[in-house]
């Protein structure tokens, strides 16, 4: 069974393959009752995401006004779906999934295969004139006060305008895109993100910035498009290495490497120097972003598969698909990057609001050592902007078990054993920032007291553990069930 799942996971090349795998495991359903684009699609997506462990993907095929079109939400919307993506059974714990991903990090060599354009499923249908995005995309308003219709799960591929032949510097990232008419959209990013760097470079040099927006993608890429890896590292290579399987690429009409099996690819070019009103958008901290003026892109062509599936995401106040999509892929690179300097780090839980709060467990070598590790965490690529609250715990505390974390906070934290770093970089959409983009960081040292601290480690109670206790738990549960009957 486990081997079958692992094999099946490695054979996935597309969203369709994964939806079929999820369906076979009872993790995907088709919603064929007629729904209105608003508010029904949002309502159903939110209702599903209440179950972070077991929510199924939902495929809508009867949306009013969009006859024949299909929309998928919640594809990465539960830990069970993430487990299946990794070839692990439903019910695998979050801790096990973390170590599964961390164990695969940079482990295998990337396998990239190239599919000729004429044979790539994504190019089955092609639109080069009379473009109207609404003809292809059954969009709906994700949150009630969003400024428009958003693509919330688009993987945007682009080349570095100053080094267009460099495969590694080609970027794939998830950025929110707001439709701005039949053939235009705005893209929201920040200077720290790879796309922000490329936009600034294009406008500084006057070089064109062409992009390919991939929708309905290989589920392994979607997680990496949202993962903070180095600027010169390829998201395609990471996705292939993690899946232990080849990633099939082809070329878009505007010369960018894209997934050969994506459902829809929109080719576009940035209008240099132009900004138009964008937002608000219900973002991952659970609040709306402000209204700003963002770069605008003109669509030059659309490719899509026959009968394409438009994949989107519900994002807002957690838990949502956003949290299960990127939570572990936010945690794993921080873990890998920390362990390069500090092999004492034993696990990282940055599941909360894209790592605005993170918990790091570390073998404490000396008094205060955990704080040193925390400061290193702040200088990881993701930590620079996102790690706002860090809770440091000992290696005997499982950071994925919040009861244990609360025990560490209760028993190993002194009120003066915290660090506040004022006026640090902050994610502009963090509603607690002093001003958007600038805020304070908090490090709570909830590790034990080691020399030369005079208190020393407490004499800990060691509760009985092991197979005997596991058996007793099962017996108690069985007796309880018996008593209820």
């Amino acid at each position, binding site marked *: 069974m486990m081997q079958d799942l692992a094999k099946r996971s490695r054979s996935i090349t597309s969203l369709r393959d994964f939806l079929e795998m999820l369906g076979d495991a009872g993790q995907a359903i088709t919603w064929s009752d007629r729904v209105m684009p*608003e508010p029904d699609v949002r309502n159903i997506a939110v209702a599903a995401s209440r179950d972070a462990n077991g929510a199924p993907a939902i495929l809508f095929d009867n949306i009013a*006004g969009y006859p024949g079109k299909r929309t998928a939400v919640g594809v990465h919307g539960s830990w069970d779906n993430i487990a299946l993506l990794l070839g692990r059974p439903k019910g695998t714990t979050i801790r096990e999934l973390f170590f599964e991903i961390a164990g695969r990090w940079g482990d295998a060599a990337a396998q990239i295969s190239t599919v000729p354009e004429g044979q790539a499923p994504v190019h089955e249908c092609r639109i080069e004139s009379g473009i109207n995005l609404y003809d292809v995309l059954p969009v709906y308003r994700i949150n009630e006060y969003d400024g*428009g219709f958003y693509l919330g799960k688009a993987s945007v591929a682009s080349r570095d305008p100053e080094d267009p032949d460099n495969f590694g510097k080609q970027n794939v990232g998830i950025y929110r895109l707001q439709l701005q008419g039949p053939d235009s959209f*705005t893209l*929201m990013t920040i200077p720290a993100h790879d796309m922000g760097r490329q936009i600034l470079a294009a406008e500084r040099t006057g070089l064109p910035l062409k992009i390919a927006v991939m929708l309905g993608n290989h589920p392994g890429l979607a997680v990496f498009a949202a993962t903070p890896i180095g600027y010169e590292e390829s998201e395609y290579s990471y996705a292939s290495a993690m899946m232990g399987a080849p990633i099939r690429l082809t070329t878009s009409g505007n010369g960018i490497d894209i997934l050969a099996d994506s459902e829809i690819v929109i080719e576009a070019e940035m209008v240099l120097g132009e900004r138009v009103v964008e937002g608000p958008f219900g973002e991952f901290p659970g609040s709306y972003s402000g209204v700003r003026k963002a770069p605008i892109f003109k669509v030059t062509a659309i490719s899509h598969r026959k009968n394409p599936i438009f994949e989107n995401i519900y994002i807002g106040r957690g838990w949502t698909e956003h949290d299960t999509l990127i939570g572990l892929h936010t945690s794993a690179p921080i873990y890998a990057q920390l362990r390069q300097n500090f092999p004492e780090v034993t696990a990282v839980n940055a599941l909360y609001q894209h790592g605005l709060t993170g918990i790091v467990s570390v073998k404490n070598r000396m008094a205060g050592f955990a704080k040193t590790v925390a400061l290193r965490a702040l200088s990881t690529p993701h930590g620079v902007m996102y790690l706002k609250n860090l809770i440091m715990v000992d290696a005997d505390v499982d950071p994925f078990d919040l009861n244990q974390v609360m025990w560490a906070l209760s028993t190993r934290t002194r009120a003066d054993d915290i660090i506040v770093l004022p006026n640090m970089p902050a994610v502009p959409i963090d509603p607690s920032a002093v001003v958007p983009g600038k805020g304070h960081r908090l490090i709570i040292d909830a590790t034990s007291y080691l020399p030369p601290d005079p208190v020393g480690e407490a004499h800990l109670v060691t509760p009985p553990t092991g197979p005997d206790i596991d058996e007793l738990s099962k017996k108690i549960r069985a007796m309880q069930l018996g008593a209820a009957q």
Partner: protein
Amino acid sequence: MSQTVCPRCTTSGAVDDYQGKEDGKVVWTIHRCPTCCFSWRDSEPASAIGLGIRSADFAVDAANLDRYPKILQQ
């Protein structure tokens, strides 16, 4: 210029971007305001698109569009 009024910034002149059709019959229309860039579908609940019903917290000030900052400045 169309008479369609934007429920967000209350200026007129919204354009029609798309009509959802079933069996040749229009079931809804997507409008876009060229002033504040708000897009909406005329079938949405009044709480989101009703002029005077929508939350004022999400209004856009059409007379002061300069107050909205441009991102990614050199």
